[in-house]
């Protein structure tokens, strides 16, 4: 039974406020992290398990030039095979090359004599496909074989994913720090709030109330205050998320898939106000019990 009208006066604004701010923050941050994770997953699905490398031919039309080119191609293949995450490297045959250029420049003897750039098809290991960063591979290749390049689209996508991941990690780090700091603030606010009730705690104690009885009343009060603030913060975060979604839609749709959250993601977000309320409750309980422990 609640015998005290806790949380009915002015001081009772602070804890809900703070829990609200904290949940607001945490929901935004968590939603951001989860959405970014989804985006990255989408991107990595776009990335096929293969890369293409291009080796420019050694200028000249003679057999010597062709031999030199072949040597370069073999060298590029060797370098690429040594890269981590590479399963196999296949050099496209002249016929395959011809088939590729035919729509552009037609077929015929003339074309066959052209010193076309040679292509290498790189198959990545299944697990590594999404994770391999073609950037360093491109550098190594260029160093080994002057003029050799890796497929640009795939290169940029890899860099983008790196950036996205760094941003995600960074966001998560900031979120952890900020949530931690705000949690500390909630703890302090709850304790400051309780300080106003210290005379009440003393009276109850002197009247012969058990520690548990006193702590329970304050804990229940803190829980309700926390829930009030937490749900408020959560509700405030929803329109903000919607606004962020609108902003994200303005970004080229092909690059950034629609920001979306799964049911599990939403469950994680909904757990945040509950967690914050529990934090307030626990703080109240511990603080009251500690205060009481110091009384004889």
């Amino acid at each position, binding site marked *: 039974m609640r015998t*005290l*009208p806790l949380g009915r006066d002015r001081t009772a604004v602070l804890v809900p406020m703070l829990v609200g701010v904290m949940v607001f923050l945490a929901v935004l941050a968590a939603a951001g992290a989860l959405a970014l994770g989804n985006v990255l997953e989408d991107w990595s699905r776009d990335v096929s398990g293969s890369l293409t490398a291009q080796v420019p031919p050694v200028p000249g039309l003679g057999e010597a030039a062709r031999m030199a080119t072949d040597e370069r191609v073999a060298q590029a293949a060797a370098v690429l095979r040594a890269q981590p995450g590479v399963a196999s490297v296949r050099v496209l045959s002249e016929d395959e090359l011809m088939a590729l250029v035919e729509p552009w420049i037609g077929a015929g003897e003339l074309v066959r004599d052209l010193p076309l750039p040679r292509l290498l098809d790189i198959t990545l290991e299944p697990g590594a496909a999404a994770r391999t960063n073609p950037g360093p591979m491109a550098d190594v290749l260029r160093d080994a074989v002057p003029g050799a390049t890796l497929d640009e689209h795939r290169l940029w996508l890899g860099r983008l994913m790196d950036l996205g991941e760094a941003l995600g990690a960074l966001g998560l780090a900031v979120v952890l720090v900020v949530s931690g700091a705000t949690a500390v603030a909630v703890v302090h606010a709850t304790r400051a709030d309780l300080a106003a009730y210290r005379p009440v705690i003393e*009276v109850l104690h002197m009247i*012969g*109330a058990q520690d548990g009885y006193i702590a329970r009343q304050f804990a229940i009060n803190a829980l309700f205050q926390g829930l009030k603030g937490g749900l408020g913060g959560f509700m405030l975060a929803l329109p903000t998320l919607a606004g962020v979604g609108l902003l994200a839609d303005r970004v080229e749709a092909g690059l950034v898939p629609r920001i979306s959250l799964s049911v599990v993601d939403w469950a994680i977000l909904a757990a945040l106000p509950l967690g914050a309320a529990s934090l307030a409750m626990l703080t109240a309980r511990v603080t009251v019990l500690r205060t009481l422990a110091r009384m*004889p």
Partner: protein
Amino acid sequence: MSHDSAARAGLDDPDANMVVRFDHVGLRYDLGPEVFRDIGFALPKGSFHFLTGGSGAGKSSVLGLCYLALRPTRGTIRLFGHDVTQLPRQVLPRLRRRMGVVFQDFRLIDHLSALDNVALPLRVAGAPETDIRRHVPELLAWVGLADHLDAKPPTLSGGQKQRVAIARAVINRPDLLLADEPTGNVDDRIAMRLLHLFEELNKMGTTVLIATHNEQLVQRFPYERLHLQAGRLTRHRGGGGASERAGVRPATDAPATPPRQP
């Protein structure tokens, strides 16, 4: 607790009949000087004592030791036969429920109405709400606050607050009543009435200890007086014969005899 009148016997009986017993008790706050160094006394079951002494002599401190708000820096204190320094913390609430305390500064809960303040000890002890609703208004009426049941302490006058504090202390008919300056903010008529209430409780077996400056009051009643001075405690025979109960009249709108409490 039995209402055994034999329990009022000798003050020198060292045994379980003693509700409070101080032996060589000394107290010092933090780094200050000792408030007292070696005081000893015992309150037998059903006794009635005044505790007097100048301002700052240590009356409130003695009461604080009795209601377990303070721990002695030396000596032993026995309450209801238990050595309080030996008792585990969890047992103390049970001891405290057997006591009623009127604090010098009242210590009412500002957010609760007079009625809820007085009901608090009953609620804490888990008394049924029906009992509470019957007895609390009755007692408040008896101390002259029938019109202020729902008033919050900040809207009460000094004397009204003091009477709420007294009602809270006696509502659960404690075995030991400790009252610190319980008549400092009321006029003589109400003071007499309140002492009459204490006497009624005492007749039903409650041991009473009242700290007071009110010389007149002390002299009007026949009870023994414990006097604190310069850190020493002395005993004095009581004042002017039987309680002048004829002079006690109810406050406005209140019945003439104290209500039976739960």
